[in-house]
Every structure is written in C-alpha cells, then in structure tokens.
C-alpha cells in the first residue's frame, strides 16, 4: 500500500475504500492535502457551471415572481405578496382538481409502464426465437420525440378517421366510432397509453439490464430445491428487481409530473378539466391568463410534489438496502 501514495499524490486522489496514504514529508503532505480537498470540487466544477450558472438566475427570478403580484396585463404592478400566490394556488378548486388528475395520470402511467416493461423484460430475458430482433424493435418508441409521439397519437385516436377506431370497428369490438379523447371515462387512460408508449423502452432496458445481472447460481440452487417457476420469480427475481423498479418509479414519476406535450396536443386539458394536470395549470396561468406570479407558484408546487414523492421512494430504496 505504500505505492498507493505515489498515485494519490500525483492527482490528489484517495480512494475512500483504500487506506490513507503514508506521508513522506510534511510539505508534500500539505500540498497533497489541499490538492486532495480541492480535487472533487474541480471535478464537479464544469457540471455545476453548466447546470447552475444557466438556471440559477431563471430559478431565482421565477421564485421571485412567485412571491409577487405579477401579471403581464398590468405591467406597472409588481407588489410583494409573500406566500399569498402559494396560498391562492393551494386553496383553489382548480388546484385540488388538477392535483387529483396529476395523481391519476402519474400513478397510472408509472404503473402501466412498469407492468408492460416488466413483462417484456422477463420475456426478452428468456431464450426465445427472434429475441434479438424483438429487443431491437422495442427500442423504436424511444427514438420518437415526445411532440411527434403526441401528434401521432392524435391521429390514431381521431374520432372520425383514427386508426384505433378503424381497427376496433373492423374487429367487431365496437359498433360505432368512439371519441376517445372527449369521453371523461376514457380520456385519462388514453393519455396514459400514449405517454407510456414513449417511455416503455427505457423501463425495459433498465429492468432487462438488472435481470441479466442475476447470478445464475441463484436459479441453479432453486432448481436443485425443486422450487416452482412462480416461487423462483417471487423469491429470486422480484427481490433482485426491487431497486431497479424503484429507480424506474423515480425516473418515470419525475418525467410524468413535468410532461406537457401530450396535454398540449391531445386534450388542452379537456374535456371540462378532466385532463388538467398541475403542469398544464401552470402553463395556462402563465401563458393564457398571463399571470406569471401565480403561474410560477404552480411550477414550484410541482417541484415540491416531485421532491416529496422522490424522498418517499428514496426512503424505500434505502430501507430495502438495509435488508439486503
């Protein structure tokens, strides 16, 4: 381990898992120590610059907006309101309804994405004919930009010319063309299906990746014990997948809470307000009502919701981690 200090000294790097380097002389050690202290920050500097220098001012400014009465229609007025915009937002009926729709949409899409993703990952992890081809084809939706995805589904769902109606009608599953996007019973499900379509490949990749990392001897042992397939799945596969599943949950929740394109292209928040999610409310408040104070407040409520959900998930991850 003595040679370790040579490498460590050069770049000021010390492995957290390695032993502390053995000092050779006091001067060198001090320089090395300063270098060592600065090094992680130097490594992070470019990322910090790119991420925060660009958004620090916008974030600061929009938080500042959210504390003021600031409507573009009244350009002279910029009164400090404290948290009043947030109170207005949280207590409004619009927000309560939007919160519920957001929950339906996010929970629904995360769940559906997970189920389809898991099923596909499990299947694609088996040795079936044509696996390579299917694996490649599963990636296709990932390559479709969200705005094109939204437009494509608009064509598919169209109440008069859409492919979905045409297909179901020809198969005899419906007797007349349905208006999928104006019926409050269907519309959220339809938006979820369009959203999930774009996101499934990523879920498959993550889950497939972890499935391939399951040590083969685990199954070997199970087979020796004559455990059933279902038992193997429950005892070995599922526990192994807990972490990746939670990670998928975090990623997809974050993305679904920010998502706007689908609502923009497919529903404009309607019919009624049955697809008005908080992100759409924020957009409407800022760019239709031109109330940037309240609109910004909605945006930071989204950040708050996302943060809460993420913390809950992370707790779950770490709780699981201790069990393992």
């Amino acid at each position, binding site marked *: 381990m003595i040679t370790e200090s040579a490498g460590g000294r050069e770049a000021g790097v010390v492995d957290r898992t390695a032993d502390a380097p053995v000092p050779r002389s006091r001067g060198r050690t001090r320089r090395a120590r300063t270098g060592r202290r600065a090094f992680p920050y130097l490594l992070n500097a470019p990322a910090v610059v790119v991420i925060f220098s660009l958004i620090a001012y916008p974030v600061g400014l929009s938080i500042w907006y959210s504390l003021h009465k600031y409507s573009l229609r009244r*350009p002279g007025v910029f009164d400090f309101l404290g948290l009043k915009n947030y109170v207005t937002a949280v207590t409004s009926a619009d927000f309560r309804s939007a919160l519920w729709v957001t929950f339906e949409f996010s929970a629904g899409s995360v769940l559906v994405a997970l189920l389809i993703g898991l099923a596909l990952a499990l299947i694609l992890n088996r040795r079936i004919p044509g696996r390579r081809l299917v694996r490649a084809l599963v990636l296709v939706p990932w390559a479709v930009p969200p705005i094109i995805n939204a437009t494509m589904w608009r064509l598919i769902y169209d*109440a*008069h010319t859409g492919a979905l109606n045409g297909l179901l009608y020809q198969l005899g599953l419906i007797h007349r063309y349905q208006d999928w996007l*104006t019926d409050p019973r269907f519309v959220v499900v339809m938006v979820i299906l369009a959203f999930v379509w774009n996101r499934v490949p990523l879920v498959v990749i993550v889950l497939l990746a972890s499935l391939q*990392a399951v040590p083969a001897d685990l199954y070997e042992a199970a087979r020796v014990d004559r455990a059933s397939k279902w038992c193997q799945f429950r005892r070995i596969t599922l526990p192994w997948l807990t972490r990746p599943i939670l990670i998928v949950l975090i990623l997809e929740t974050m993305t679904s809470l920010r998502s706007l394109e689908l609502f923009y292209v497919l529903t404009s928040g309607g*019919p*009624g307000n049955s697809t008005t999610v908080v992100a759409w409310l924020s957009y409407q408040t800022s760019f239709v*009502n*031109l109330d940037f104070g309240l609109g910004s407040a909605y945006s930071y409520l989204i950040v708050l919701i996302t943060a809460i959900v993420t913390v809950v998930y992370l707790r779950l991850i770490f709780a699981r981690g201790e069990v393992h």
Partner: protein
Amino acid sequence: MSAFGDVGTTRRNLLKSSALVIGSAALLPALQSCGSGSGSGTVKLAGQGWVYDPTFHNGLAKQYAQKNPGVDPEFTFEQGEKYLEKIIALYTAGNAPDVVFAHDNDIANFADSGYIQPINGMDGWEDSLKDLIAFDRTGLDYKGKTWGMPYYGDVMAFIYNKDMVKKAGISEAPQTWADVTEQALAIKKAGVLDTPFVFPMDNTSSRHWFAAIHGSGGNMFDEQNKPVFPDQDTTALQFLTWLVSAAKAGVLDPASLGLGTTTGMQTFQAGKAAFMTDAHYDMKANNDPTKSKVPGACGQYLMPSLTDSGPHKTIGFSAAYCVSAKTKHTKESWDFIRYLGNSDANRQLFLRDGQAPAYTALQNDPQVLAELQKWCDPEIANKQTQLAYRQNGMDAPWFAQWQVFNQQQVQQAVLGKMSPRQALQASADKATELSKQ
C-alpha cells in the same frame, strides 16, 4: 457483463465515438454564423409573425425593400400555438421586434403590456383605414385608439355537405337551430350519417360558440364587458339548451367536445359532418380534392337563429400588423405595415390562401369574385360578411382566461354533468369574479 475483458477493441471504439463528437465540434461554429452586419445607412426592420404561408410575407418584405432601398425588413416566424410565448420572451428579454403580427384578441394584451403603440396621428393613418369592413375596423381598436393595419378579416360560417343534404331530400336552408335538428334527423334517418351536426367546442374554440350566439342576435357581454347572460340576454341559455337537446337527440357528434377549428375542418373533409360551423376560409380546403374526401360538396348557409326572424349574424375575426412600442424606427415601421396591410396585399393573400380581405372595395373586385366562385357562393359569403360583428368582451383583460372556463362549462352541460343554467351561471359568476380582480 463479460464484455470487460478486451481493452483493445474498447479503446478503438471509444476513439471512434469521440471522433464523432470532435467532428461535430468543428461544424458548430460554422453553423452559428448568424446574419448580422448590414450596409451602412439602411434601416433594418425585424418583423415577428406566426407561421402561415411565410413565402407570402417574405415576398412582401422583398417587394417593399426593392421599392424603398433605405429599408431592409426581415421576418421571423413562430409556430402559431407558441406565438404568445415567443412575443413575451422577446419583450421580456429586451429583444423586441419592430413590427409584430397580432390576432384581434391579442391586441388588448399587447397594448396593456406596452408591447405595441397606437397608430393614431401617424402619417396618413386615417386614410389608410377608411375603406375597411366594419368588424375589421373595430377589430383594430382598443381603449379608443387604433393599433394596426389589417392582415385579414374573416367570418365564422355555417357550412353543410351538399351531397348529404340532397340524399336526405332536403332543399331548404335551415333558418333556425330547430330546423337544423329536424334536417339532421332526416339525414340520420336516411342512413347518410349517424351524427350529422358537428360543433367544435374544445377549450380553444370559443369562436364557434360566439358565432352561434350572434346568429340569434344575442350577446354575452355589454359594452362595458359586464356579463348579460344567462338572464338579461337569454340567447346563450336558449342556445345551450338547444345544443344539449341536439346531443340527446343524437344529432350532435359527441366528438365535437374535443374538436377545435382545424380538427373540425378535418372532420368535414373526412365526410363526417353534414352541418358544421367553420372559419369561412376553410371552405377552400374543404372543396379541394387534394385535401378533402368530399371536394366540391362544401356549401354555405347563413348562420341559423333561434327564431325565424333571424338575424343570422355571425362573428368576424381578424388579425393585424402592429408597430412595436419599443422600436427605434417608428416612422419606417409604420410605413412598412401600411404596405403589408394595404388592399393590394390583402387581395394577394386572399388569392393565395383564401383569407377574406378587410377592404369593402375588394368584396366586388372581379379577381376576388372569380376566385371565391371556385369554392363557395360569393353571394351568401358576402351577405354573411355584412352580418358579421366583433364580439363584445374581447377587450377585457380576463377574457382569455374566462373563455377557457366558459368552454369547459359548455362541455359539462353537453356531457349532462350540469344543467345549461348551472353551467352558464357558473360562467357568469366567473366573469364577475375575474373582473373584480
């Protein structure tokens, strides 16, 4: 995870991929070169518009530059849906253009936000505007001032499918909404179409709603933007009651709830509407064999009313070219928009794209009439245009917000979740509440 072994191929591949990245690095500066720097003495004018036939506006700018060598106007176009965002961003960043497009319902916003300046008192402004159709002229006004030159002005039309009507043995135009129900039922019975009436009413299509209210001579707001519905003026309530009954009778296409003007037009073009409200200029595409499944079948009736007595009015909507309040070249910008919005440019636009010109003289212009004849009946078109008005309430700073709310209430009523009265009362309360803020 056995791929760790072979370091040699790894490095080669890494090099290959990094070569790609570095290669693109060389390309970036080349593509960034932005067209700045101009000849000395020329005034550069930046125009900001939405995407609608950019070739036309670029052509106008070029023509103008040739006639006025000292001025060099150049347009940038933004997609229509995001136009407002772009304008807000440009002005917030202090990057304001000299000339901007504005829809009639943008004018109040832009004026209140200090984005555009009135043209009153500018060189020859009154002369430039004296021959405008009434609603086109009022569409340019806000708070007693005039804010731009006309881009186009068109009306909401009540259109029908000639073949379907003929198949059902109908020859008379429907005078009232009750007639529409009756004829639609006949079409339904004849097995031509299951839901013959299409009335776009998603959150963005309040123009259709207002056109229908105006058809019966009603209004939702008075001159002071105070709501007069549902009781003082009962037109809105009566029409919504009819609309709900049409839904119950199975003649209103339920998909209407999710249709906007564009998707509505497409419904007609797919042959899925016998009667519909639509922007008049869409009739051109509706009768175009490359765009429509029912070319040549799209005809126009006057907007139906609640009673036989009419008055079959409709709403007109318009767009304008405005001079930015932040421009350093007010005189040049004004001169440029005068050119953009003159009657000749209006005619050119109509001949290309079908948006009706804003000048009365052009209604009887032989070229215009010849073109109009290709895709509609000029007599009815002109008659409906003379019955077109600008809707009240549009000046109110809360109008954009309220109209989304109002559309939602209308949808709820059609879905049967609220009674028409409840829906409109909620909408009126919302207007009162918003006007107090």
